[in-house]
């Protein structure tokens, strides 16, 4: 057994770990700069993150060493447990206005929704790999969506829109990877796009035309096509009502992206300051610990959501570029491992993890650069925040575990 493990570990894709460690180092480098000037939220974020990093490495080993078949065997039980865990905080007092946290009476709190991310991926992977599914049928999409939607709704209710959306992210890529028809996935995605497009007359018009073209090219039965088309249009018209059910702060975040002058000291203020920090950094940056926007606290939540702005200001575009290339290499590497993987469970798990990394990197960077609404998603390996760092290193462990041939 140990011999076997040893041999297996020798073949594991260590490049994944190396990239993760380089990115973590960049994170520590940046957090040190922030902490050195008394930044962050009062605690020494550098030291605290270091503790989480050590725990993360331990969890990484665990995720690496646990036999794949055991995970495969018990994943549904784990899925049940994690559903219970995300519900538990609802019985506790709110922390920072949400039910995200479980408290152990320790100085460190635990956020179970983070673990829901990888457990949901594994449960999905098991479902999609176990049966000899007829992937050509649209009905095959139903169960995987249910698997993801249950934790999605619970986490959304906490409320934590960011994490909730991330739980949903792997579903489409994994279904695609498992062989679902792209048109079917399009049908699933169409309503979401309809809603988003409904906020602007022009975008909705373009979408309505595009929808007609795609439905036309896919040649479904006439009544289905008509139903699909008008169902989506109807949903788009319904969007304003859905909009009104959003919390004011969520509305605010979307609104200020559309018009940043709306609220210079709210969400738009954050975007403006973030862009200013990035822009003033230039190619080489203002130098480590030299960022005025960072250290004079113009930058909001600089240690987590806006850490890219700090990197951009102090270390310049060149570092941002290297960082993004490293993330790209990491994700493409995961895709390659998924392609080369012999069994479908491992392959699908890798795809799920890859899609989550991509979502985090894209949403966080795009938000920092003012391309999408301010959405509290941290940057993998780099942002301050214990629970998510643990998730990332569990991911690394799983990738190396599942990416290694027996």
């Amino acid at each position, binding site marked *: 057994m140990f011999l076997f493990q040893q041999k297996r570990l020798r073949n594991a894709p260590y490049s994944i770990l190396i990239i993760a460690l380089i990115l973590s180092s960049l994170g520590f480098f940046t957090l040190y700069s922030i902490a050195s000037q008394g930044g962050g939220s009062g605690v020494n974020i550098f030291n605290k993150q270091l503790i989480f990093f050590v725990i993360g490495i331990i969890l990484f080993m665990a995720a690496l060493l646990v036999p794949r078949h055991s995970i495969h065997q018990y994943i549904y039980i784990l899925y049940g447990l994690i559903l219970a865990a995300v519900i538990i905080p609802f019985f506790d007092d709110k922390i920072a206005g949400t039910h995200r946290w479980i408290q152990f009476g320790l100085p460190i709190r635990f956020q179970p929704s983070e673990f829901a991310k990888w457990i949901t991926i594994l449960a999905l992977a098991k479902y999609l*790999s*176990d049966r000899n599914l007829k992937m050509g049928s649209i009905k095959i999409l139903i169960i995987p969506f249910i698997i993801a939607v249950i934790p999605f709704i619970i986490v959304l209710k906490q409320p934590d829109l960011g994490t909730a959306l991330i739980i949903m992210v792997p579903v489409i890529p994994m279904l695609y990877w498992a062989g679902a028809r792209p048109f079917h996935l399009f049908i699933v995605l169409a309503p979401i796009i309809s809603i988003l497009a409904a906020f602007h007359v022009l975008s909705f018009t373009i979408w309505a035309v595009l929808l007609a073209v795609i439905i036309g090219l896919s040649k479904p039965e006439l009544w289905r096509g008509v139903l699909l088309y008008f169902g989506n249009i109807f949903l788009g018209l319904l969007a304003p009502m859905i909009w009104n059910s959003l919390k004011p702060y969520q509305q605010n975040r979307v609104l200020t992206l559309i018009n940043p002058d709306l609220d210079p000291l709210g969400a738009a203020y954050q975007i403006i300051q973030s862009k200013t920090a*990035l822009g003033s950094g230039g190619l080489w940056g203002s130098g480590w610990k030299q960022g005025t*926007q960072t250290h004079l*606290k113009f930058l909001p939540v600089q240690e987590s959501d806006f850490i890219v702005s700090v990197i951009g200001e102090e270390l310049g575009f060149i570092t941002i570029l290297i960082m993004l290339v490293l993330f790209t290499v990491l994700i493409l590497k995961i*895709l390659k491992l998924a392609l080369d993987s012999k069994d*479908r469970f491992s392959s699908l798990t890798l795809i799920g993890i890859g899609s989550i990394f991509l979502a985090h*990197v894209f949403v966080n960077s795009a938000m920092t650069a003012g391309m999408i609404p301010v959405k509290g998603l941290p940057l993998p390996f780099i942002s301050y925040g214990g629970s998510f760092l643990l998730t990332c290193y569990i991911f690394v462990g799983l990738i190396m575990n599942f990416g290694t041939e027996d």
Partner: protein
Amino acid sequence: MLKAENLVPKQRFWAASSVVVFLIIILIGRFFSLQIYQHENFSRKAESNRIRSVTLPAPSGLILDRNKKILVDNYPTYILYGIPSEISDKQKNFNIISQATGINSDILNKNFEKNYRGRFIPIILAKDLTIEQLSCLEEAKNQLQGIVYKQFPERFFSNTIRASHALGYLKEIDRETLKSLGKKSPFKYGDLVGGSGLEREYDNLLQGEKGIEFYEVDAFGREARKITEGKARIPHPGRDLHTTLDMDMQRILEQEFRGLRGAGIVSNPKTGGILAYLSSPDYPPDLFTGLIEEQQWASIIGDAGRPLLNRGSNGTYPPGSIFKMIVMAAILDQDLVKYTWETTCRGYYEFGDRVFKCWNEFGHGAVNLEKALVESCDVYFYRVIQKFSINKIAEYSRIFGLGRATDIDLPSEMTGRVPDRSYMNRRYGRSGWAMGNLLNISIGQGELLVTPIQMVVYINYLATRGNTPKLHFIDLPSDSYEKYPPVYLSNNIWSFLENSMRKVVSSENGTGRAADPDIPDLVIAGKTSTAENPHGEPHAWFIAYAKKGDDMISLVLLVENGGHGGETSAPIANKIFAEYFRDESITMTDK
């Protein structure tokens, strides 16, 4: 176990990889745009984000008296500011401040609301904090987030004199003035500018040049670091204002006027310099320096004595008998009566169907020119004025400076009123007035109105035989005196006027006897007046000049509703002459 084989087609791998690369390229493009393409733009923005200029107040120049004694000084006070965004519990903070300094927390609250101009902009909560109050605050500093203080040079006034109407006050610049000055003006909202008196007249000279410092501030507007490089500028204090005022003289004048309403002005006829200037009642000179308390305001605004009115330059009064020298000069200059011409005064004079009274109801008996002036016989003037036209009287009045501005260096003055034919026609209609009105004017009553400062010019003309420099507070070199238009009269007339006025003070029957302090070689020429007015008791005037050797001073005293000038005003003149001339002889013998 893991039976299901991985059958994923290669094109799905390529499709997924393309999506990844596509999204990352979008990101790289965006970062490139922000960090390289728009780099300069954002650098500038970052710079202005963090640099804040802070202006440093410059102390105003001092105001000094003619002996270089300081009349208005500066002393460092502290201004307490609150920064709204940093104050977590306003009421608690205010209570602590209130306990430490004794300032009522209601006042702090009121100022907070009144001066609020934004979350990050410091609000003035209290002014005039002393070092003691500050040290009490320092002890509680840990509990006072968002409360800061700054040193500020504030006006400090001598405690022996007030002279508030002459010196004036500083006040915060108002919005309209600020707007009208435009963007280039060095003033900012909240700056102090001269509000009245010399502070206003010589604001440009007294105002210093503000300094500027640059601070690096954080996102909350807190000053994080002082920036030493760059275009910082230290404040330059304003220039000192040397005045002709005499602190001792001013003190005596204020002492003598205590409890009286009116005006007193002492000047040097040879230089035009004002030695003492008082409008009574006045207000404490530091009234406007601190944040004024509403009660205090109300008591000053509502005061029936109108302490804010500058009676010296802006109060208009009938001159009464002091006007008689003008009439006398006019009739002599026009050669209308002889010095020996006499008339009889029975205490009244019948003119048409009206009876005009003399102030002396028992009558003066036989009155000649000199006696008419010395004893101020009204009947004599009723008689001689009939040889005259109203326009002629108006002309001579103007020659002596009535009806026109004196150009004294105060921000505002009234010109009074010299009635002439066109004025009377306008007011009463062509047939609505007659010689009777002229009879009233001949004794300085009726439509005639003068300011005390005009009377200073008048007495100085008499003292200098028609050649006197313009009145001024600022101490000028003697070659830069501007003169009033000279009054040309024959030396006989000047001598007659002076001799008569000397007798007013020195003769047995003179009305101004009380003004004579009985100092050897001191010559005093004066005239009293008891000016009837519609507001009750007559106003008591006394104007005079006194000379001893080359030294000469003149004074104009007016006590509103003071009764007889000879009884109320002349004794004040006595004290002033005594102080001025006796002091001088003592100091001279000391040396």
